[in-house]
């Protein structure tokens, strides 16, 4: 009951001087609104930065097959063909932290168009999900190949900007036909320019085709010769009968394993294998979870014993992820400090007005004391007034701030995102500011001598 009356008295006092109340509240409104707007802009910016980082490949995980080791010779990562396209399908189905998966079959061959030829840095056989993993879904022109093309091993491809420049001298390649190892590929689309990656490799020097097409029609490695560096890959298949026209010169650097050595290290029988699997985690926070889920899943699928080492490795982009999280953290901190300053300024405004108000209402305070208000009552009343001002300013500030950030995104096209944390923080901080900066004037009022207060002119 008493607190209700205190509240009513405080509201009455605020109503009695509307202009002053409005001006005081304005300080807090601007403070809170700027906090909210800046937090929203900051939040939006950090999301935008994260998106950029993702397009660099921050969330990408590369799964590489394990190393084969025969007769004391380790052939290095990727020498054992243990990954299958079915692994890729299983990962996207069963690992919840993974957003997209693309199996990759690599080739390094010449691409011919008309009288020009070029050897792209990357000739990748993959699925349409590759574009999703690499955040590359927007095409410059044309369209990507589909899962249907992958199933049919269609002779279609999409090319990067560098290939357009080199082979087509800048003309539109869509609908044209290029030859890769004498297989005709119809160009369906052109990828957006991405520039060099962090290592300086040109990412636009790329040709993407269904992995089935690359695997069976271009690379055409047989099941038994999985270890390409150890064996001669010049075996032919019926599909590509013309591959002998450009005979490969491949030196056998390593001794061919003997029959008994091969028997000692039997290769697991997998009917189709891929060179690597590219996956994207749902967010940078999900990367550790994704690694764990993929490891468990693949060990299970490859029937590895608990004691056996994994026959694959997973790499993440630790460096990029670190850069990303530190950038985001920096922005958030920066905005927080700016926001704090504006709230403190608002709080000092409240203190100012409350001090003026105490002086102006000295007689009122004296009267209230004379009729029986004890110092605690006076303290409570002024503190309540300050807190009401702050909460009022806080709630109007939240609305104003949200409106401002909406306007910023609508008019200036800056990315913004509502941050609930900012709203909660603004309310808590504005109430705290009310208590802290309202306390001194209220305390001053409660310490007044009633006789002097009553006589104050």
């Amino acid at each position, binding site marked *: 009951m008493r607190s209700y009356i*205190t509240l009513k008295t405080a509201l009455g006092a605020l109503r009695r001087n509307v202009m002053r109340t409005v001006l005081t509240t304005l300080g807090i409104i601007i403070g809170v609104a700027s906090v909210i707007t800046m937090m929203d802009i900051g939040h939006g910016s950090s999301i935008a930065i994260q998106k950029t980082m993702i397009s660099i490949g921050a969330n990408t995980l590369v799964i590489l097959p394990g190393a084969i080791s025969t007769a004391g010779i380790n052939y290095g990562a990727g020498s054992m063909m243990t990954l299958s396209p079915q692994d890729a399908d299983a990962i996207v189905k069963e690992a919840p932290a993974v957003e997209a998966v693309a199996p990759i079959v690599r080739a390094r061959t010449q691409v011919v168009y008309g009288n020009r030829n070029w050897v792209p840095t990357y000739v990748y056989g993959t699925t349409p999900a590759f574009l999703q993993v690499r955040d590359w879904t927007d095409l410059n022109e044309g369209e990507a190949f589909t899962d249907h093309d992958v199933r049919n091993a269609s002779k279609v491809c999409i090319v990067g900007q560098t290939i357009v420049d080199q082979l087509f001298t800048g003309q539109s390649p869509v609908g044209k036909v290029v030859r890769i190892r004498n297989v005709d590929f119809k160009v369906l689309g052109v990828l957006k320019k991405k520039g060099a990656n962090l290592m300086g490799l040109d990412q636009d020097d790329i040709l993407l085709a269904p992995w089935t097409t690359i695997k069976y029609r271009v690379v055409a490695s047989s099941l038994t010769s999985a270890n390409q560096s150890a064996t001669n890959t010049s075996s032919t298949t019926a599909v590509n009968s013309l591959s002998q026209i450009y005979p490969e010169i491949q030196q056998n650097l390593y001794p061919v394993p003997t029959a008994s050595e091969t028997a000692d290290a039997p290769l697991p029988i997998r009917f189709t294998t891929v060179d690597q699997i590219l996956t994207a985690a749902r967010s940078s926070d999900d990367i550790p979870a994704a690694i764990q889920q993929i490891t468990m899943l693949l060990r299970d699928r490859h029937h590895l014993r608990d004691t056996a080492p994994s026959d694959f490795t997973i790499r993440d982009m630790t460096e990029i992820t670190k850069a990303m999280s530190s950038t985001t953290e920096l922005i958030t901190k920066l905005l927080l400090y700016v926001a704090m300053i504006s709230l403190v300024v608002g709080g000092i405004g409240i203190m100012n007005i409350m001090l003026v108000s105490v002086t102006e209402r000295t007689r009122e305070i004296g009267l209230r004391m004379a*009729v*029986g208000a*004890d110092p605690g009552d006076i303290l409570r009343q002024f503190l309540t007034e300050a807190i009401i001002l702050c909460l009022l300013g806080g709630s109007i500030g939240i609305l104003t701030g949200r409106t401002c950030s909406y306007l910023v995104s609508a008019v200036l096209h800056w990315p913004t995102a509502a941050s609930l944390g900012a709203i909660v923080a603004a309310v808590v901080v504005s109430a705290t500011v009310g208590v802290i900066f309202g306390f001194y004037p209220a305390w001053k009022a409660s310490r007044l001598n009633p006789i002097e207060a009553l006589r104050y002119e």
Partner: protein
Amino acid sequence: MDLIELRNVHKTYFLGEVELPVLLGVSLNIARGEFVSLMGVSGSGKSTLMNILGCLDYPTSGEYWLEGREISRLTASEQARLRNRMIGFVFQSFNLLPRTTALENVRMPLTYTRENISEHQMNQRATELLEKFGLADRTHHQPSQLSGGQQQRVAIARSLINNPQVLLADEPTGNLDSRTSAELLQMFQQLNRSENLTIILVTHDPGVAHHAQRIIYIRDGLIEKETTQPKSGGAV
């Protein structure tokens, strides 16, 4: 036992190094239901005496017994509670809250009582008092819309809302014209007679002071003399 008893009350103000004695040993008894005037020129110490009687100030030495309790050494909040329960104040400048209705002004002291009174009860008591002072049609007027006499009547209603034992009036007629003053003093006499309310009127005006039964003259911090007149009502 008397309602109010002062025993050898001294009050000295300390202004830095300088000691300023204002009351030099005042002893005074006021019985319940008395109507007393405190008379004296300005600087005589009558205001200080009134502040001590009204529990707004402490005596430097001496005792103050109110309703059988020694109250000269209470804490600030104990004093506040006592003022709220026992003493009603009427001031020269009315001291009504600006931009606040008469009703809200009158019920204001009730918000500081330690009793549990609902808002409805507060309003009821305030309205009754305002009606009693002929302000029934003015309950929702603000002080700026009221005449001086009406404002002072609102102030009196406010001072009586807690049913105090003592009404302390400090130059209540100082800001009123003579006709309104006379009405007000009559009202005091009536309150004193019909409700047996103890009234202490502080004034420098002999004409005003003579409305009381007993006049205490104060001079240079001491009681100079006392005169008593029959409980008649006095001539205006």
